[in-house]
């Protein structure tokens, strides 16, 4: 390898990036746009879930319970219903995610037995939302229960037993505010980097074929390795700048806590950039049309990163077969590392497993890429 030829390739490629409005736009504007879209648009929290209430008893106690639902930020009471058919209609019409039915003998049963049931019907067409709503609802009921229990003991002359008064304090670590944004945004950085990295390099080789510059280039003494590095190095710089912009936005704009160390972040980001750029380059070598190359790059980066990296869907909730597949889905390692660094202050040592996974991937991809390109027309 000649440093001089390599420098010439890097210089030429950098000039072309700077003069091509399309790659500049992909490189600089897209990460900002996506960060805004995904940062604001994707949230697994739900607020103001619409619920309907059918209070059959309509007593002081039940009204107090209903007002609790109203007071909680999680719900917005859409309507008070007056019959069972209304419940059905409200759910069918999609007016509410959940309908709460308080039975006519609620207070009586409670007074007699010390326990009573509230029925809640969920529209589970959106399983995710209904699950979360169910959780919130149970939270509210638990609060109500605590109050009722205390009053029941008071009314019946007994002392509230220590055993009955379990103080439920759900322990939440690392993401204390339970803000799903803190969980999502580090993953968004991975998605953006994967998307842009592979997009950028997927065009580099196919562009030379389409514009007819490749035939002359391969008639010179430049080596395949110099061509590869000459194309990867400038885009690596672009990728790292993009990563820095996204990470800065995550911390300073979206207020995601950053607890880890920058060096670990840099190492992981560099490895990930290398992998996605290498994948784009591989595609570019194989596919000679720019359009096809860009489409395929989108497919092999966006899908695994959004669906199988644990970015939105937790890997340990997936079926075992899919879990096994995620082991070869390279973004999962980076997403794991990013979350570790951001939320847990994980060190290089803590993250040795995903880091090893990324190193293996980086070596594999670069090795494949270095063998993919041949200076021949046939």
């Amino acid at each position, binding site marked *: 390898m000649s440093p001089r030829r390599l420098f010439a390739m890097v210089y030429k490629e950098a*000039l072309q990036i700077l003069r091509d409005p399309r790659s500049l736009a992909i490189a600089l504007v897209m990460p900002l746009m996506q960060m805004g879209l995904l940062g604001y648009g994707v949230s697994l929290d739900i607020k103001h879930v619409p619920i309907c209430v059918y209070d059959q008893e309509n007593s002081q106690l039940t009204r107090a319970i209903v007002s609790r639902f109203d007071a909680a930020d999680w719900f917005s009471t859409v309507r008070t219903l007056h019959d069972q058919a209304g419940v059905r209609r409200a759910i069918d019409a999609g007016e509410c995610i959940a309908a709460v039915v308080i039975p006519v003998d609620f207070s009586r049963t409670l007074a007699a037995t010390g326990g009573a049931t509230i029925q809640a019907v969920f529209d589970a067409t959106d399983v995710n939302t209904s699950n979360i709503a169910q959780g919130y609802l149970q939270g509210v009921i638990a609060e109500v229960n605590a109050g009722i229990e205390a009053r029941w003991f008071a009314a019946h002359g007994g002392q509230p037993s220590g055993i009955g008064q379990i103080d439920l304090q759900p322990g939440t670590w690392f993401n204390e505010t339970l803000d799903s944004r803190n969980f999502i945004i580090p993953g968004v950085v991975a998605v953006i980097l994967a998307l842009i990295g592979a997009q950028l390099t997927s065009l580099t080789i196919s562009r030379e074929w389409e514009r007819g*510059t490749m035939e*002359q280039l391969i*008639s*010179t*003494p430049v080596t395949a390795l110099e061509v590869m590095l000459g194309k990867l190095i400038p885009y690596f710089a672009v990728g790292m700048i993009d990563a820095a912009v996204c990470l800065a936005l995550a911390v300073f704009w979206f207020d995601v806590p950053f607890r880890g160390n920058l060096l670990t972040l840099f190492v992981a980001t560099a490895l990930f950039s290398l992998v996605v750029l290498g994948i784009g380059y591989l595609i570019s070598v194989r596919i000679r049309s720019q359009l096809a190359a860009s489409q395929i790059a989108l497919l092999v980066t966006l899908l695994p990163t959004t669906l199988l990296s644990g970015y939105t869907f937790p890997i340990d909730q997936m079926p075992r077969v899919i879990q096994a597949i995620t082991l070869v889905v390279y973004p999962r390692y980076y997403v794991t590392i990013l979350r570790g660094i951001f939320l847990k202050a994980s060190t290089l040592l803590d993250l040795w497993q995903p880091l090893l996974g990324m190193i293996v991937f980086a070596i594999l991809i670069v090795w494949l890429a270095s063998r993919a390109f041949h200076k021949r*027309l046939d």
Partner: protein
Amino acid sequence: MNASAAPTIQVRGLTKRFGAVHAVRGIDFAVSAGEIFGLVGPDGAGKTTTMRMLAGVLRPDAGTLTIDGVDVARDPERAKLHLSYMPQRFGLYEDLTVGENVFFYAELFAVPRRERIARSAELLHAAGLEGFERRLAGQLSGGMKQKLGLVCALIHTPRVLLLDEPTTGVDPVSRRDFWAILYKLRESGVSIVMATAYMDEAERCSRLALFHAGEVRHCDTPARLKASMPGALLAVLAAQPRAAHRAIAASPGVLGALLMGDRVHVRVDDAARRTPQLEAALRTAGVADARIEPTPPGIEDVFVALLGASPA
């Protein structure tokens, strides 16, 4: 030019297939230092495929191909150090300036800085591109682009220059500049191989290989090729050359009749005997103003006579 010296380029039995298409069928030729070797033939005759194999960007299926003693098929990278190839399609970067393209190719061939500066100034001057260093290559005219291609190809002083139809679509002034540079190169001992569709350019070559259906059917100097043409050539000048062509094409003794702009080139077995017969045939057909005179053959006439097909 030393005739006893080993040729710079030696091609033996060169063959290339693309699936069922037999693009080049075992061709042989040799090019010496200081020669401009022309490849002439219609599209699809195998000229570009041959060029690409010479440039080391396409692997031959069979045969040997050496440049300066280096086996191009086996060690293309070593051969590439001393050759330059200008593909048929403009191969430089249109989003880079003239100066940046020259710099890029100089660096790929590790041209020393001082030499690069001196040589690029000299070449840009010869190509009439002085003062255009900061212009984007994509904004040059067709002729200027091709001359820039030549400048980039010559920046590292190659021993072999491969040009695939370099002057197609180039204005006459640029073509003159182009040829002036080629003649100078020839004097300095560079071997030039050039595919061309222009017959006037073919005439200027030292030797020509006439390509037809993947084979080199004839290979010699333009003068000797013309001398080898069977029969004698007559030019029929008429106001309506098409009518004249129709009138004489089937006359006895006519070996071939070729419409060439305002005249018809007629190849006959015996000029003295056939001229009056042709005049009679023209009169019968009502082409009254026709004039017949002997004419020296051009490369196109030779190509048609030898191969029975048009060269372009």
